[in-house]
């Protein structure tokens, strides 16, 4: 055995320990990353799943014309000013006849959501013959009642309901006068001060309009810019400067784009604040680099032989590009655009700058109506002091993630199905 072998052998144990350690670090690192992912998702699903359901309370409601102060339900004005809370109050008083005193009565009335009144109004509008009738109805519970019913025995001690309220709710629960239903208001309303009436439809519509504006602006401009840079641009200082700009813009913090939007688009051009149109323009500027870079990659992937073949037939440069290169590169460009859109959909910071952070109840009807978007809605709810909003924010996150996952899956599928390998 040679001297070398002997010396090497002495070091082996130590070196293999180091090897194992190193490998363990690697596995540990991946473990940390994956664990963070799992924690994030379980945390959000754990917090948010309950928001997809809500509790209702059963009450016999009498549509008393006098209490309501409605004589003709067909009169829209009268209908709108009807005292629906009064009817609910009467129903509650009837259900709990022993409750007396102003304070207790008010506490009792807090059990039902203020939104229940609108439900009664809508019912009456649908069916005017209800006036004077009594119906046993399921009414939306207040968010504190909802939280109390969803909570475990132990958590119930921390409820915001007072002792008497807790007793009443427990009584209703025991006699089957409460039930859990799918939270429809989540998907059918805009924001609200009352958690049980707040929904994400307004934010989803806002996001939709913003994304439409972004897509309509960024895709054609991005593709045109990519075509110019790949196919027409001469190699000179100006082109280099454009490239440096694109690469840097891709790494500029998104909030800076918000400042640009605020100072130039709102300040200089006088477009209104809080509207999806401005949001879409800002996000366009932000996603353009992504789209340009991926579109250029797609154009580069088209083999030169195709260009030469078309050119050999006497096609002009523009014809080569529009008839041959562009159709072949389009799937790759679309994939890039979808990924860019997914980024834009999750973006929050620049939209705060241009005022899309306002409290907006009405559903936006177009890109010029004040609106908020899904991520901003999440931010607003996460900042709200009421506990129910936390669950709502988680639920909104789940919806947002579902959109993002769909978009990214679509991009992957598109790439697999349409992209050609040369």
């Amino acid at each position, binding site marked *: 055995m040679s001297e070398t072998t002997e010396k090497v052998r002495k070091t082996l144990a130590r070196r293999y320990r180091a090897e194992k350690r190193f490998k363990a670090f*690697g596995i540990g690192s991946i473990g940390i990353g994956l664990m963070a992912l799992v924690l994030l998702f379980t945390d*959000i699903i754990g917090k948010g799943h309950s928001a997809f359901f809500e509790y209702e309370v059963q009450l016999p409601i009498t549509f008393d014309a006098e209490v309501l102060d409605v004589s003709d339900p067909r009169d829209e004005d009268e209908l709108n000013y009807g005292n629906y809370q009064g009817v609910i109050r009467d129903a509650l008083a009837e259900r709990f006849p022993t409750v007396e005193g102003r304070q207790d009565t008010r506490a009792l009335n807090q059990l039902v959501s203020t939104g229940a009144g609108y439900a009664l109004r809508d019912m009456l509008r649908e069916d005017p013959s209800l006036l004077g009738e009594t119906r046993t109805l399921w009414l939306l519970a207040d968010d504190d009642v909802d939280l109390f019913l969803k909570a475990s025995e132990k958590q119930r001690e921390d409820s915001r309901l007072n002792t008497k309220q807790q007793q009443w709710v427990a009584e209703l629960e025991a006699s089957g006068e409460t039930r859990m239903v799918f939270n429809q208001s989540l998907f059918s309303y805009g924001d609200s001060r009352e958690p049980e009436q707040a929904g994400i439809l307004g934010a989803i519509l806002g996001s939709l309009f913003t994304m439409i504006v972004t897509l309509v602006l960024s895709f054609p401009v991005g593709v045109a810019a990519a075509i110019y840079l790949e196919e027409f641009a001469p190699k000179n200082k100006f082109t280099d400067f454009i490239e440096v700009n694109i690469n840097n813009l891709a790494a*500029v*913090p*998104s909030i800076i784009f918000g*400042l640009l939007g605020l100072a130039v688009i709102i300040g200089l051009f006088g477009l209104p604040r809080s509207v999806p149109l401005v949001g879409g323009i800002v996000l366009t500027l932000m996603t353009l680099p992504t789209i340009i870079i991926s579109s250029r990659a797609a154009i580069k992937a088209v083999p030169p032989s195709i260009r030469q073949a078309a050119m050999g037939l006497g096609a002009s440069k523009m014809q080569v590009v529009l008839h041959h290169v562009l159709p072949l590169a389009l799937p790759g460009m679309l994939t890039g655009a979808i990924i860019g859109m997914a980024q834009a959909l*999750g973006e929050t910071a620049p939209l705060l700058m241009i005022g899309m952070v306002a409290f907006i109840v009405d559903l936006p009807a177009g890109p010029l109506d004040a609106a908020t978007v899904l991520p901003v809605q999440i931010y607003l709810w996460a900042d709200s002091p009421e506990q129910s909003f936390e669950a709502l924010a988680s639920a909104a996150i789940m919806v947002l993630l579902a959109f993002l996952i769909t978009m990214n899956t679509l991009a992957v599928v598109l790439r697999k199905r349409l992209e050609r390998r040369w």
Partner: protein
Amino acid sequence: MQTGNLLLLLVVMVAGAYFVGLRRSYALARPLGGIRHLHSLPFYFAMRSAMWCAIPALVVLGLWLAFDDSIIRQQVLAGLPAELQPTDASSYNLTLSKIQNVASGALPANFVEAPIAAAAENLQALRQTSAMALTVVIIVLCMFGGAWAWLKVSPQLRARQQVERVLQTLFMLCATVAILTTVGIVLSVLFESIRFFGKVPVTDFLFGLQWSPQTALRADQVASGGAFGAVPLFMGTMLISAIALLVAVPVGLMSAIYLAEYASNRVRTVAKPALEVLAGVPTVVYGFFAALTVAPFIRGMGESIGLDVASESALAAGLVMGIMIIPFVSSLADDVITAVPQAMRDGSLGLGATKSETIKKVIFPAALPGIMGGILLAASRAIGETMIVVMAAGLAANLTANPLEAVTTITVQIVTLLTGDQEFDSAKTLAAFALGLMLFITTLVMNIFALHIVKKYREQYD
């Protein structure tokens, strides 16, 4: 006429011009014996006339819409009697919104001074005139453009070249949007910053240790003058970014090394996309996670061992930001590591080095410039990250290096200063732009430097 209707009209006219152009070229070709006697295909003649019809009109329309509002505003305010003339920025805004509200009917005319009501009427009238004039101008431009194109049509006309040149110019304009964006960013933050530095000296801003931007909203209000020393913000930003990098760099780097050098194909196909999911999660979700889960957890942990932890500790924001950056670091590191030629690995393994020795002593040093570039990019991203810190870091501008205390960052302050109702000209809102300028310059320098390093590194092995 409303802008939407005007656009619709424009589309109709352009389509008309297209078909007129098409028919004209066919009519021209018939006596010659078919379209092959024309210089270009009829399609190009049609496109050419459509372009002549559309482009001048669109340019005028764009400019008009961009500037008519501010011109009208000037006109209306100039028409006010001297005693109602706005003296400063806030009264300017107030007067203006009053006039606009009256004009839109939101405020009854008898609620305001007579001159204001008159101004509102003036505003209405001017707006109508402007819209009318615009409609007329657009129609005339379309007609003239279309007619010009129609007149110039001849069999020898190089219509294809003209159309292609216009298209190419259009493509070039699209490419310059990137430059315009940069210029727009620079100008917008620069102008407001200069105005800010007119109110607050640059040295106070850059070296001041006190940050409390609460200035008086109205002149008669009693409030502190506001302090705009940004050092606590810079320190806070650096503290949180440092925590984030301390998490992300080792974890991201080791993940990349393990996936590139050790992991089996099966592990790689699962772990790599899973890590990339982390990169696709919106920052607001991380902010939610940091503020409502991680921060209370760290606070609870600290309390259980007797430490006083702020509920909005720098640690919570930094940790979560680190998690967010992990995939960013790992994908950059992966690129860099796989770019090291196989010959390096062979050389080392052939001498009897173990895998980890090869990685630590050959691959890592060889990849170091690229990795440094990647870390720099990650740092620039951490500095510019907004939502996590807005939701999980505090507003209090503490000058501290203790990660358990609350600190605030540049981005948090930009958001706080600019959300909520502010007038546009106060030192408070302008300060946000000065911070934006700092942020932009810092990240720009870091990005250019990092991209340069990475590019040089790649060229070395190409």
